[in-house]
């Protein structure tokens, strides 16, 4: 191998090499950012849907709501059920009453990403039935019940937002609430939630006669199909979704996310390959005489190829190394994201991607280099 010689050649053109490394880093960080954010989003959706297992979400969406939105998007600001319908739904036989409740949902702060769980989500719920929403998630501090009309349960993210612990006072839409408990870390739908009593939420939002949805939990898992059939027969105008249906619907969204992720990765690889190829082709032209000399004194084709490959690989791998801090910086500055450990798997994958970029980018210049006639070295200047 002639890697020492390759490193010296890179050092000789260090200005150009730095620009190349930076350009590759920008391409690779694009892959890291897109894939990490999409992967986090994907995991969040999956965990939310898993947490919703055994439940049915009943909503009434406007007629112009696109197909699939009813089940694919848990929080739908446009859903509205009158109280009479909600009460009738909660009176259906075979329900676990403690785990079923009407809910009123309202975003308090938008998410930086479109069509995702709000950064802060107000959840009005019947006191004593908090598990209808919180499901299997446990308390990190305090109690997960609402003792009075002005008490609140905070998700871990919401608690961080308000910098509040049990007993602390927070203000929501101009009204003071006392924090009763804080939820353990959970998917964003729970992490970002602020649970308050349903009636208080209705008064606060001026929606005394309506709720957003009803969450129904079957007393026995085997009762679920019967419950769904009953809902379909008695309430054909309502959208009832189980987590299986939501998973199916989310599958379409996830497949779109995968396509987007693949397109971004392909673009990053393509642009990275072109950038490095241009630089290495130029380098081979400049090193023509030296490569000719090496051939003349007995360097085999594979050694020349290894020289060119090393030049391309070193630059692409250094670009991948630099990509991580760039991605961290962009995420922190742009959206204040601090889940940097989630970047690591994608970053490690990017190292492999950078190696692929290096290998692909070296093919053309290496072909040119190995075909340099050793007699080139004997041409006098």
């Amino acid at each position, binding site marked *: 191998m002639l890697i020492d010689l390759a490193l010296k050649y890179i*050092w000789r053109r260090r200005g150009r090499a730095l620009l190349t490394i930076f350009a590759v880093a920008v391409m690779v960080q694009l892959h890291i950012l897109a894939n990490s954010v999409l992967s986090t989003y994907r995991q969040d959706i999956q965990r939310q849907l898993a947490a919703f297992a055994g439940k049915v979400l009943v909503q009434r969406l406007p007629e112009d709501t696109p197909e699939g939105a009813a089940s694919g998007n848990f929080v739908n600001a446009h859903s509205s059920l009158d109280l009479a319908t909600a009460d009738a739904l909660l009176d259906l036989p075979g329900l676990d009453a403690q785990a079923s409740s009407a809910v009123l949902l309202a975003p308090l702060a938008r998410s930086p990403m479109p069509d995702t769980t709000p950064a802060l989500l107000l959840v009005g719920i019947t006191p004593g039935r908090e598990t209808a929403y919180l499901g299997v998630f446990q308390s990190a501090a305090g109690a997960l019940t609402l003792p009075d009309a002005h008490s609140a349960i905070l998700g871990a993210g919401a608690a961080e937002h308000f910098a509040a612990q049990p007993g602390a006072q927070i203000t929501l839409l101009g009204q003071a609430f006392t924090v009763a408990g804080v939820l353990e870390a959970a998917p964003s739908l729970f992490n970002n939630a602020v649970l308050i009593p349903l009636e208080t939420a209705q008064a606060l939002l001026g929606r005394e006669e309506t709720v957003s949805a009803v969450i129904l939990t079957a007393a026995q898992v085997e009762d679920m199909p019967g419950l769904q059939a009953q809902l379909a027969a008695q309430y054909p105008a309502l959208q009832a979704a189980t987590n299986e249906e939501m998973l199916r619907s989310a599958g379409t969204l996830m497949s779109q996310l995968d396509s987007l992720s693949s397109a971004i990765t392909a673009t990053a690889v393509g642009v990275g390959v072109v950038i490095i190829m241009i630089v290495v082709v130029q380098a081979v032209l400049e090193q023509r005489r030296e490569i000719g000399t090496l051939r003349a004194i007995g360097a085999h084709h594979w050694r020349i190829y290894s020289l060119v490959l090393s030049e391309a690989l070193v630059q692409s791998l250094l670009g991948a190394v630099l990509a991580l801090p760039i991605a961290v910086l962009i995420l922190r500055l742009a959206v204040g994201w601090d889940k940097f450990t989630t970047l690591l798997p994608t970053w490690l994958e990017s190292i492999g991607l950078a190696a692929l970029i290096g290998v692909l980018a070296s093919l053309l210049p290496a072909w040119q280099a190995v075909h340099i006639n050793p*007699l080139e070295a*004997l041409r006098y200047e």
Partner: protein
Amino acid sequence: MNPPIIETKDVWKIYGSNGVAVEAVRGIDLAVQAGEFCALVGPSGSGKSSLLHLLGAMDTPSRGEVIFAGRLLAQLSDAQRTDLRAREIGFIFQTFNLLPMLTVWENVEIALRLGGVPLAERKQRASALLAQVGLQERARHLPSSLSGGERQRVAIARALANRPRLLLADEPTGNLDSQNGTDIMKMLRVIAEGGQTVVMVTHDFRAASYADRVILLRDGRLRGETHLEGAPDMQQTVERLFQLGL
């Protein structure tokens, strides 16, 4: 008599350019014995360098045969010819052709690396070769900081690195002043007296006078040859070459 180390039989080299064929080498028969110091002289365009490239397995003849140590070069693959250049043939160029990014020591070491010499041995041999050409003090210097004579000495150390059976030198004094040229020729003479076969292309009669045999080429053909005896004598060399029809 031992078989020659390198031999050509009716070898031709014809270059084609824009439909015009240029016969650089025309039917040369040549045999160089092991341990011989042979100089190829002739005016520009006489085919000296083309013949040297054929002898060094860097080019292939259009017709005829080049035989190195009993092996027909035309029958060797590109990889085998590369191996030959790495291990059995050393090259010295007029413009030195050192790798400018490598130090003096590294320029010698890389030839050993290409010759497949293990690392520990490379370190020892590279240093010994630099001592042989009197450049051990300059081992860590880059070629750009050396004089022309010093660079050519590094090139000689590199060419000798793998103890080649044949040393080819193309105008080794062409870019050197008179004193450095003389030093390099003395060095080549010592190498030849040590049993190394040397074939040198030159148009410098002073350089040619250091050889055992001087071969005159003109218009791609071998016009004659003369054997020199005794100490290098440029006057004697020129007279002999004129007798050959220079």
